[in-house]
């Protein structure tokens, strides 16, 4: 039995439901109000503010924000030798990491897409996705222990008279490669899986050996997938300030930006320097889209 009050409420709910059905625009408005408020106003607003902040400055004497627009910060970033060196170092690192992940990702992605049984493939996909999603800081920290003076790597290499890289640029390269490898494996795997078997068979029917087929058929078709993966490996390396802090003594763009905010309290300069990876990524995304990487995402 429903009470009259419940009944009344039920009627109003039904009327509302009918009204919403008749006015899909109102329905859309209700759906979008909160997300637009959050993502467009709050998030995009923050990004816009960030852009504007880069044009502000900090009063050297008082440490207060001066909201007069100036290109001073950009000039500082562009003309200071050490910032240029750090920017170049970071971009080179991102490129090296990207290339290394492609080389390591290809064999396992190919195995998953083309050779593994569907059961093995399922297990492998989950095994790659788990570390992709979780434990970023924990993994960097694990490497810090592994690479330490008396750590695992030196312990394993010692009998062969070898030494690990210690905390260095090589360590950053190794750890970034490790961290972002799954982001490269997943798109390449998906890309290789999409290649029709008939193409590979045609190539081998026409006399193409495995290596030739790989170079002339598989590689060109997998290129958009590689580019898709490289968007992640490149962007993630450019912005990472945790890894260099834990496994090296070198500064990368992220570290300098972080220090500008924390140690120096200079938000405007931090924002201006952070525009370097943003600009690089925008150019990168533009080129990647031209080359068809977005379809492979």
């Amino acid at each position, binding site marked *: 039995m429903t009470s009259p009050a419940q009944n009344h409420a039920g009627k109003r709910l039904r009327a509302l439901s009918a009204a919403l059905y008749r006015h899909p625009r109102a329905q859309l408005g209700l759906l*979008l109000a909160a997300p637009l408020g959050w993502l467009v106003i709050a*998030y995009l607003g923050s990004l816009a503010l960030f852009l504007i902040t880069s044009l502000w400055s900090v009063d050297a004497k008082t440490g207060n924000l001066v909201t007069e627009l100036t290109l001073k910060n950009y000039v500082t970033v562009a003309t200071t030798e050490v910032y240029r060196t750090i920017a170049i170092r970071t971009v080179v690192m991102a490129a090296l990491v990207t290339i290394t992940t492609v080389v390591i990702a290809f064999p396992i992605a190919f195995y998953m897409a083309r050779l593994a049984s569907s059961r093995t493939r399922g297990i492998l996909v989950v095994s790659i*996705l788990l570390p992709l999603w979780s434990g970023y800081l924990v993994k960097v920290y694990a490497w810090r222990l592994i690479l330490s003076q008396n750590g695992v790597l030196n312990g394993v290499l010692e009998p062969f008279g070898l030494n690990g890289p210690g905390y260095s640029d090589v360590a950053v390269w190794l750890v970034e490669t490790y961290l972002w*490898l799954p982001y490269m*494996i997943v798109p390449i795997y998906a890309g290789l899986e999409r290649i029709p078997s008939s193409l590979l068979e045609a190539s081998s029917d026409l006399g193409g050996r*495995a290596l030739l087929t790989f170079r002339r058929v598989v590689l060109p078709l997998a290129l958009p997938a590689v580019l898709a993966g490289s968007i992640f490996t490149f962007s993630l390396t450019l*912005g990472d300030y945790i890894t260099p802090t834990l496994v090296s003594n070198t500064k990368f763009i992220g570290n300098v930006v972080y220090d500008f905010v924390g140690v120096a309290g200079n938000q405007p300069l931090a924002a201006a320097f952070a525009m370097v990876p943003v600009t690089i990524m925008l150019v990168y995304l533009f080129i990647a889209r031209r080359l068809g990487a977005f379809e492979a995402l």
Partner: protein
Amino acid sequence: MLLPRGLRIALRIASAATLAFIYAPIGIIVLYSFNAARVATWPISGLTLDWYARALGNAGIRNALLTSLEAAVGATVVALILGSLVAFAVQRHAFFGRQTLSFVVVLPLALPGIVTGLALNSAFRTLGFDFGLFTIVVGHATFCVVVVFNNVVARLRRTARTAEEASMDLGADTFTTFRRITFPAIRSALLAGALLAFALSFDEIIVTNFTAGAGTQTLPLWIFTNFQRPNNLPLVNVAAVFVLVLSIVPVYVASRLTSGTESTGRT
């Protein structure tokens, strides 16, 4: 495709080696958390559960763990609501700027984390918000929306609307249809999205570092401020295992829920 036997074996070995490379450091950190010695030398000197007991008794770790849980639950709830709303709007309606909206949802994950962190940091400062749990939740929710969105959109795309239409033809209103038909169809996608959002929030540090302020510490932040103190090393190892387990288990469950049919990838 026919591959020479040697090449097939080589690919198999390379795959196994890659998996070992991915999982070895994770295994090592777990092993070190049971290490009897205070220092992380190799090989380890013995096994103990002592550090787990001490970590659980450590007020700093306990508070940080609690903050992390609160932040992750808060971010997950916000992401669930916003992500599903956007998913329904994008999947069920045609409107101006639909493509752009899908892009904006992905943006917080596509941009380097330091940019999102810095942008939010500037905004909070300018608007005069106090840094703390609230600002952490705002930051996390912003990049968690996309995972719920992805899962729900993928599910809606695969769910035929005929069942909903039948329900309405039989006299059910929008709300009853949603409760009885639509919601059960997307329930597991919502759960998977929520688990991924939780995991993403729980081990986040790059954005958190900019949105937490001085007084509030999540577990990853606790690790970040203690990793250089030799005295705390064994506790950091245990805290790392806590973070690892609480982020990897939800992801595993989520991947079982969607069992490979939906996007667990980041885009």
